[in-house]
């Protein structure tokens, strides 16, 4: 449902069906809605059977990369004598994305159930739900749900009386976007700084505590009980487009739009209808100008591209961007694109862990140059420098945060170059330039204290 709005008739509310119902947060309320029947069913199967069902459903990771979940699970070898771990990635910090928050706030038991099934399927006795520290309400609800599930014997040493041990623990993060990157999350859980690890080894070989580990996004895990209950064919049939994109997906919508919120649709839905019908189009008197459809890390689309997009993994790629985490950020005709892009660059500069030179220096310099352009002090050379920096930041670092910073900059320069040029030549008049973006720049200039002249 479009929480905080009512479910739109064209939505397919499966994961979000019970958003807004306070009773669904409790164990009793959840059981009344069919909760934990899928876990019971799962515990009567072998792990391999569950993995096969998830594979057959076509479910792909909802955290950003879209990796097939069943295949990821099949890399784990239950019975190899090692402790296995499941990490649930509830770090949700990608600007534009706020779907996992609503899942945990409204249906915490759905996630406990998804984690328990996932853990069992990969031969893990322990699952950790790593929740970003700012999500205090989610943490409270998740801790309550976990405690209720333990007290009812649903999880613990003898999960649902089957003699199997499944522990689920909530772990609170402490403020760092980079801890959403899978190996950084594991480092953080181990009580370290959240620096991403060099891969290989991949987590399935050596992950949390150096043991075989699978990491999945919140939304990925909560889809699994539905797949077990209704069968993989049911899930697979839920697609309006390609067999490579199956099931329903939550899209978070924010920015300059009439009805921001979460919307659950079947993959393959036309993006144009989504934007103008479900989300209510622009605010009165305004026009949409640009969309970042998959969270701040993906390329910006013009409205022409957006309106031609099918909302699935391939559809977004075909229109020059990516589905990512499903965080749809909309800018209208009153926005100054260079200013918005500069602020995104600052986000990445702030969140860079600093291990790789290209990223540490590149994100800081990109921000500095963009802010200079926004302040009306840029040059045409700056535009070339930005593209050079972006090139140097792409495909060369330990994780993709660096690439993520380059994506909105390169696409912004391609598609809205006239706005940058107008700032440089001083021709911009109708929109506020917002020269004073926001503060915090001291941290950035510390990182960018060498090299290029300012």
């Amino acid at each position, binding site marked *: 449902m479009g929480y905080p709005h009512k479910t739109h008739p064209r939505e397919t509310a499966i994961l979000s069906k019970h958003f807004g119902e306070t009773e669904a947060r409790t164990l009793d309320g959840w059981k009344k809605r069919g909760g934990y029947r899928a876990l019971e069913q799962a515990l009567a199967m072998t792990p391999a059977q569950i993995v096969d069902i998830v594979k057959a459903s076509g479910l792909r990771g909802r955290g950003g990369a879209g990796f097939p979940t069943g295949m990821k699970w099949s890399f784990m070898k239950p019975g190899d004598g090692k*402790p296995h771990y499941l990490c649930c990635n509830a770090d*949700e*910090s*990608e*600007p*534009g*994305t*706020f779907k*996992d*928050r609503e899942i945990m706030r409204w249906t915490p038991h759905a996630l406990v159930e998804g984690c328990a099934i996932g853990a069992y399927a990969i031969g893990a006795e322990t699952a950790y739900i790593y929740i*970003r*520290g*700012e*999500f*205090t*309400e989610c943490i409270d609800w998740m801790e309550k749900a976990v405690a209720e599930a333990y007290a009812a014997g649903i999880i613990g040493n003898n999960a649902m009386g089957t003699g199997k041990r499944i*522990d689920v*623990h909530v*772990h*609170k*993060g*402490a*403020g*760092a*976007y980079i801890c959403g990157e899978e190996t950084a999350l594991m480092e*953080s*859980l*181990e*009580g*370290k*700084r*959240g620096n991403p690890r060099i891969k290989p080894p991949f987590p399935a070989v050596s992950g949390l*505590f150096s043991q075989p580990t699978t990491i999945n996004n919140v939304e990925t895990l909560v889809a699994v009980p539905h797949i077990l209950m209704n069968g993989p064919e049911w899930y697979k049939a839920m697609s309006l487009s390609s067999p490579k994109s199956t099931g329903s997906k939550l899209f*978070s*919508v*924010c*920015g*300059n739009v009439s009805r*921001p*919120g*979460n919307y659950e649709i079947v993959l393959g839905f036309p993006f144009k209808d989504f934007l103008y019908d479900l989300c209510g189009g622009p605010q009165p008197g305004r026009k949409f100008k640009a969309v970042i459809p998959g969270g*701040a890390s993906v390329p910006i689309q013009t409205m022409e591209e957006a309106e031609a997009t099918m909302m699935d993994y391939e559809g977004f790629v075909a229109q020059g961007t990516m589905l990512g985490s499903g*965080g749809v*950020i909309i*800018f209208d005709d009153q*926005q100054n694109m260079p*200013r*918005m*892009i500069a*602020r*995104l660059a600052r*986000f990445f500069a*702030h*969140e860079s*862990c600093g291990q790789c030179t290209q990223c540490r220096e590149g994100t800081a310099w990109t921000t500095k140059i963009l802010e200079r352009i926004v302040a009306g002090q840029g040059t045409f050379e700056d535009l070339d420098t930005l593209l050079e920096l972006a090139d140097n930041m792409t495909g060369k670092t330990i994780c993709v945060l660096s690439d993520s910073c380059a994506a909105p900059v390169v696409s912004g320069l391609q598609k809205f170059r006239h706005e940058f040029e107008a700032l440089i030549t001083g021709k911009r008049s109708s929109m506020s330039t*917002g020269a004073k*973006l*926001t*503060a*915090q720049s001291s941290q950035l200039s510390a990182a960018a204290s060498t090299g290029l002249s300012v």
Partner: protein
Amino acid sequence: MSAHGTTPYTQVFTGKRKNDLDAILLRYPNKQAALLPALWIVQEVHGWVSEEGMTEVAAALGLTAAYVKGVVTFYTMYHQHPVGKYFVQICTTSPCLCAGADKVTEAFLKHTGCNELGVTSPDGKYTVIEVECLGACGFATPVQINADTVENVTADKVQQILAGLK
């Protein structure tokens, strides 16, 4: 809240809180993994994480104080100085900026008397900072005040929000 060096440090991990930490330790295969949770407890008790707090955590988990400091400084949510009674975090990342987060920030700075980001107001009541995405972008502008998130904040609501703080 004890300011560094002026009041003696009170131990955190005694009595019930020691038991809480012991229960947390059972969740992990080693003690180090309890570092973030232990630091959270220190911050809950003292309002910030002082050098003494880091030393206590280090001793409890068999780590060095220098190591603990290295971890504390990585994360933005551990306060390394005392902060105001109300710690106000305003998201100003682009999705919120395009919806007016800069005006919200200005209003908070003005009405709290802080005037500057990161500086505690003269009465010790408020510290206002800008933060990156709070994961509530559809409710722009979200403002986190201590543990609570206030959604859909606009500049004209700021005075009323401040008046409602207990």
